[in-house]
C-alpha cells in the first residue's frame, strides 16, 4: 500500500503539476490585471515554489516586480527565466534593463555587450538597447547598438537620430554630420536640424550652423530649439547682444521646458564673469529678466553644461547685479569647469560674504578648498555650513577634510553624523566604512561598506575596501570574491562616458 501511494504521488506531480500551475497562473495573471501587483507577485512566488522550471512564469513575475519598481527582484526573476530556458530577446532586454535600474551596471553592460555582439535581427530591440545604454552614459556601446539598429532599419529616423546624437555627445562631430546628412534624411524635423547645426558648430563651422538654424527659425518661428541653440553658439562666438536678441524671442514663446539644447558652450568665461562682478559693471534692474536667465542657467547647469551656464549667468547679472545666488551659481559652475581655478574660489568666497547665513555657499567653498588640497580652510568653511544647517552631504565633506588632515577619529565622528543625517547616502556609508577599516573597528566597517553596496551596487570602491579587510583577517576566499567584484564593477563603471567637466568628469559621483 505504501508503495502504491508513492507511485501515485509521483504520477500526480508529473501529470498534474502543469495543469495545476496553469490554473494558478491564470489566477496570478488575473490579480496582476486587477492592478494588485503585490498579491499577484505573492501568487507567482507561491506558484513557482511548485513549478520552478517555468521560465515564462518567472518572466511574468519579473515584469511585475519591474512595474512595482523592485528592479533587483525583477533582475533576479529574469535571470531565473533565462536559466529555465526562456531566453528570447524580450527577456534578455528586460534583464539588462533591470540590471541597470538596480545599479548593477557590470552585469547590465556585460549582457548588453553580449547581446550586441550576437547581432540580433531586431532593429527595435537594438534601438531600445541603445537608448538604455545611452541613458546610463555608455555612449560607446550605445553607438554600437544604434549602428546595428540603423543598419537593420536604414530608413528609420530614430535609430539614425540617436546614432548622430551619440556621435555628437562623443564629440565626433564629423561623424554626426555624416549620419545626419545621409539620404532620406528628414530636414523638416526641427530637432534633427538643430542637432546638425550644433554638430557644425562643434567643428567650429559656426557659419553653416547659424545658416541652418536661421532657416529653421524662418520656417518654424514658434519652435523653441533653434533660438536657444543659436543663442548659445552666439555666446560661444562672444556675440552676447545677438544672443540676447535670440533669447528674448525665445522668452516671448512662453515657458519652454521641452526645448532641446544640443549646443554646449566650450569657452570658459569664468574670468570674465569674475571681472564683471569685481568691476560691478552697469546693471539694468529687471527681476523678470534676471529670473528668466537665471532659470535657463540653472537648467543647463543641471545638465552639466557649466560653460553655457556661466554665459547665461553673465546675462542674468546684467539685470540682477552681484546677488548671492548669482555668485554661488557662478562659483558652482566654475568649480565644475576648473576645480583648481582661482575664479571658482573667489566667486564662492564672495557668495559666502554676501550672505553668510547661506550654508550652501560655505559648503561649496569648503569643497573647492578641499579640492585644492587646503584641508584647514575647507574645515573652516564646512564647519560654517554645518553650524547653519547640518546635512548629510555637508557632514560627509567635513569628514573628508578631517580625514585628509589626518584627524582619523574626528573624521569618523563626522562620517557617523553624515550617515545619521542621510542613511541612504551610499558615499557616506562608504566613507564611514573606509575610515573605520583603518581603525580596529573592522566589523562595523564591513556593515557600512555592505550598506553602501546595498544602496549602490556599482560602488566598486566598497568592494575593494571589503576585500582588503577580509585579507587582513585571513579570509582569503571571501577577499578574492570581493576583489573580483571590485574589478568587474569598476571595469563597467569606467566604460561610462564622461559628462561635463570638473568633478563630474571624474566619475559618477559629482
Amino acid at each position, binding site marked *: 500500500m505504501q508503495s502504491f501511494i508513492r507511485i501515485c504521488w509521483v504520477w500526480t506531480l508529473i501529470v498534474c503539476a502543469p495543469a495545476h500551475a496553469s490554473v494558478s497562473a491564470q489566477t496570478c495573471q488575473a490579480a496582476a490585471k486587477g492592478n494588485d501587483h503585490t498579491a499577484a507577485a505573492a501568487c507567482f512566488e507561491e506558484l513557482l515554489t511548485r513549478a520552478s522550471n517555468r521560465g515564462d512564469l518567472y518572466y511574468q513575475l519579473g515584469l511585475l516586480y519591474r512595474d512595482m519598481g523592485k528592479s533587483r527582484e525583477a533582475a533576479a526573476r529574469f535571470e531565473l527565466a533565462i536559466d529555465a530556458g526562456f531566453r528570447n530577446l524580450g527577456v534578455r532586454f528586460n534583464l539588462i534593463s533591470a540590471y541597470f535600474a538596480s545599479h548593477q551596471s557590470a552585469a547590465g553592460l556585460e549582457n548588453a555587450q553580449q547581446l550586441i555582439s550576437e547581432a540580433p535581427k531586431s532593429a527595435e530591440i537594438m534601438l531600445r538597447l541603445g537608448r538604455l545604454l545611452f541613458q546610463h552614459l555608455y555612449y560607446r556601446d550605445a553607438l554600437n547598438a544604434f549602428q546595428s539598429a540603423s543598419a537593420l532599419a536604414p530608413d528609420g529616423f530614430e535609430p539614425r537620430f540617436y546614432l548622430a546624437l551619440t556621435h555628437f555627445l562623443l*564629440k565626433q562631430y564629423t561623424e554626426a554630420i555624416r549620419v545626419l546628412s545621409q539620404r532620406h534624411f528628414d530636414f523638416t524635423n526641427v530637432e534633427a536640424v538643430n542637432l546638425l547645426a550644433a554638430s557644425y558648430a562643434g567643428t567650429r563651422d559656426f557659419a553653416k550652423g547659424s545658416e541652418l538654424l536661421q532657416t529653421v527659425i524662418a520656417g518654424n518661428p514658434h519652435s523653441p530649439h533653434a533660438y536657444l541653440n543659436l543663442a548659445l553658439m552666439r555666446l560661444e562666438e562672444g556675440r552676447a547682444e545677438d544672443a540676447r536678441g535670440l533669447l528674448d524671442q525665445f522668452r516671448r514663446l512662453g515657458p519652454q521646458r521641452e526645448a532641446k539644447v544640443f549646443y554646449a558652450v566650450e569657452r*570658459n568665461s569664468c574670468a570674465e564673469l569674475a571681472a564683471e562682478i569685481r568691476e560691478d559693471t552697469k546693471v539694468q534692474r529687471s527681476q523678470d529678466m534676471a529670473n528668466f536667465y537665471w532659470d535657463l542657467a540653472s537648467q543647463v547647469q543641471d545638465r552639466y553644461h557649466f560653460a553655457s551656464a556661466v554665459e547665461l549667468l553673465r546675462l542674468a547679472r546684467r539685470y540682477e547685479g552681484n546677488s548671492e545666488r548669482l555668485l554661488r551659481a557662478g562659483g558652482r559652475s566654475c568649480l565644475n*569647469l*576648473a*576645480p*583648481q*581655478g*582661482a*575664479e571658482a574660489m573667489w566667486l564662492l568666497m564672495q557668495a559666502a560674504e554676501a550672505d553668510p547665513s547661506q550654508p550652501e555657499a560655505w559648503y561649496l567653498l569648503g569643497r573647492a578648498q578641499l*579640492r*585644492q*588640497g*587646503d*584641508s*584647514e580652510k575647507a574645515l573652516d568653511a564646512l564647519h560654517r555650513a554645518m553650524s547653519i544647517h547640518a546635512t548629510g552631504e555637508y557632514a560627509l565633506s567635513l569628514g573628508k577634510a578631517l*580625514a*585628509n*588632515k*589626518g584627524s*582619523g577619529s574626528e573624521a569618523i565622528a563626522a562620517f557617523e553624523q553624515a550617515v545619521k543625517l542621510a542613511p541612504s547616502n551610499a558615499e557616506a556609508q562608504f566613507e564611514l566604512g*573606509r575610515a573605520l577599516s*583603518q581603525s580596529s573597528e573592522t566589523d562595523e566597517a564591513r556593515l557600512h561598506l555592505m550598506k553602501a553596496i546595498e544602496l549602490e551596487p556599482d560602488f*566598486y*570602491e566598497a*568592494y*575593494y*575596501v571589503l*576585500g*582588503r579587510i577580509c*585579507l*587582513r583577517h585571513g579570509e582569503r576566499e571571501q*577577499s*578574492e570574491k570581493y*576583489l573580483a567584484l*571590485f*574589478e568587474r564593477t*569598476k571595469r563597467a563603471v569606467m566604460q561610462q562616458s564622461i559628462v561635463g*567637466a*570638473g568633478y563630474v568628469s571624474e566619475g559618477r559621483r559629482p
Partner: protein
Amino acid sequence: MRGWPVLFYGALALGAASPLLFREWGKSSGIDFKLTSGTPGKHYIIESITGGVALFDYNNDGLLDIYLVNGSTIEAERSNTNTAEDKLFRNNGDGTFTDVTRQAGLGDRRWTMGVAIADVNNDGFDDIYITNYGANRLYLNNGDGTFRDFTEESGTGITGWSSGAAFADYDGDGNLDLYVSQYLDFDFQHLPADSLICRYLDIPVQCGPRGLTPAHGRLLHNRGGGRFEDVTVKSGIGKAPPAYGLGVVWGDYDDDGRPDLFVGNDSLPAYLFHNDGNGMFTEVALPAGVALREDGREQADMGVDFGDFDNDGKLDLIVTTFSEDYKTLFHNDGAGHFTDVTRSAGLVQPTWNLLSWGVQFVDLNNDGYLDIVMANGHVYPEVDRHKLATTYRQRPSYFLNLKNGRFKDAGADAGPAFQRAEAGRGLAIGDLNNDGAMDIVISNLDAQPTIIRNPGGPGHWILLKLTGTVSNRDAVGARVSVKAGGLTQIREVKSGGSYQSHSDFRVHFGLGAADIVDELTVRWPTGKTQTLKHVKTNQILKIEEVNSASR
C-alpha cells in the same frame, strides 16, 4: 637599560634643535649642465618624462660621481641632429666636479630617460645602464676611468620607450639581473593629435598617456659576464598586461630572502611582482594592497621607493603621483599586506597639489628615522596661465619623520635649496662629501640640476660600503640591520629606484644620540649573515662578504 634614557633625552634634544638649512652646491661646483627635453611648451608627452640621475663611484676613489641623463627635441630626433648628451661629472673631493664625459667615452645622444648602475660582470667596477627612447645602452666600465659600449654583446639594447631600470639578483646566482620599465608606443612621425585625451581641467595640453598604447616591461636575466637573456615571458612577468611603466624598485617586502619587484604605472594600477623563488614571479599588487590607493582608485605613479619608515623591520613603500592626488605611503603590515596610511601620516594635504617624480626614503637629520624627499614639477606649462592651485615649477619636498607615524612638511624651513622651484624629475641621494649627511641631487627639465648639500644634523651616523664576494659584487639585495640606541633599523642595498635614477650604493643609518652601534648584521643575497658588534659610529665602514668559497 642604559641605552634607552640616553636615546630619550637625546631625541628630545634633537627634536628641539634648529631645522637643518640646506644649501645648493651651485655653479661653483663646476657642474654646468642643462637638461634638454623638447621645447619649453612641452607639447608632446615625450618632452616631459626624461630626467634620471645617478650617484655612484665610477673610479673607486671613494667619492660619489654624478651621471646626468640628457634628452633631445622632436626636431633633432627627426633630423638625427641631437647635440644634447648625457654627462658624467667626477667628484674632485673638494666640493667641485669635473666633466669627464669625453675622456670616459660616454655621452649618449639618444633621448635618454633614466639610468641605473650595477657591476654587471662583477669585476669591481660599476657599469652604467641608460634607458632611452630608442635602443638602451650598457656601458661597461673598463676600470681605467673609461667605458665601452657593451650593449650588443650584453643583449640589453631594448628598443621602444624605456623609462625606469633597476638591477637585482633575483635568482641568487651572484649576477645582477635587470628589469626595465617601458612607457608607451610613441612615433615621432605620427605624433598624437589633439583629441579628448589632450585636456587637463578643460585646458588643451599634451596628449597621453591615456589613449596611447601602453607597453610591456622587460626582465633580463644575467647569465654571467654581463650577458643577458630576456626572460620576461619565462619568468611570468610578461603575464601582466602592458602598462605605462615608470618608476621601478626591487625590495624584499616579505623578508623571504628574495628580492621582489615593484613597478609604478602611470594612470594604471601598479604592479608588485612577488619573487616565487624558482625563477618565476607572480603579480600580487591588488591583494597586497599596493596596486591602488586606499579607496580603490588607480594613481599616476611616477617614482617609487622601499624603506622602513617606522622601524618595525618591514619595508614600506612610497609612490609619487600626479597633482590633485596624494603621494601614497603604504605601510607594510606583514604577511604580504600593505595599508595606505597616507592620511594618518599627514601626507595628503602637503602633497595634494604637487606633481612628484623622484622620491627617496632617507634620514636627512640622522635621527634614526627615515624622512622622505621628493622632486616636483608639473608636466603642463599651461597650468601657470590658468591661476590654478598647482604650478609648473615646484619646490622639492622634505617630509620630516615625526617618529609617531606622521610626517611634517619641513621644506619651507629647510633653507634655500628647498625653495628653488623647477620642473624637477629624477632624484638621487648620496653622501657626496662623505660627512655622514646624505645629500640630494635633482635633475630639472630645461634647467641646471639642484645639488643639495646637507649640513648634517646633530645625530650620529654610519655609512656602510658592502662588497660581495660570492654574492653580486655590489651586494645589491643585501639587507643590513643595525641596533643602536634602542632602535633597530633596516636598509637594503638597491640599484635603481626613485624616478629613473640611482642612489648611493652605500647604506646610510642615522643613529641619533647613540654613539655606538650595538649590533650590525648583514644578510647577504646568498642568505648568509655576518654580524659585527660594538661598532664605532660616524664612520664609513667597508664590509666584505666573508665566505670560504670566494669567487
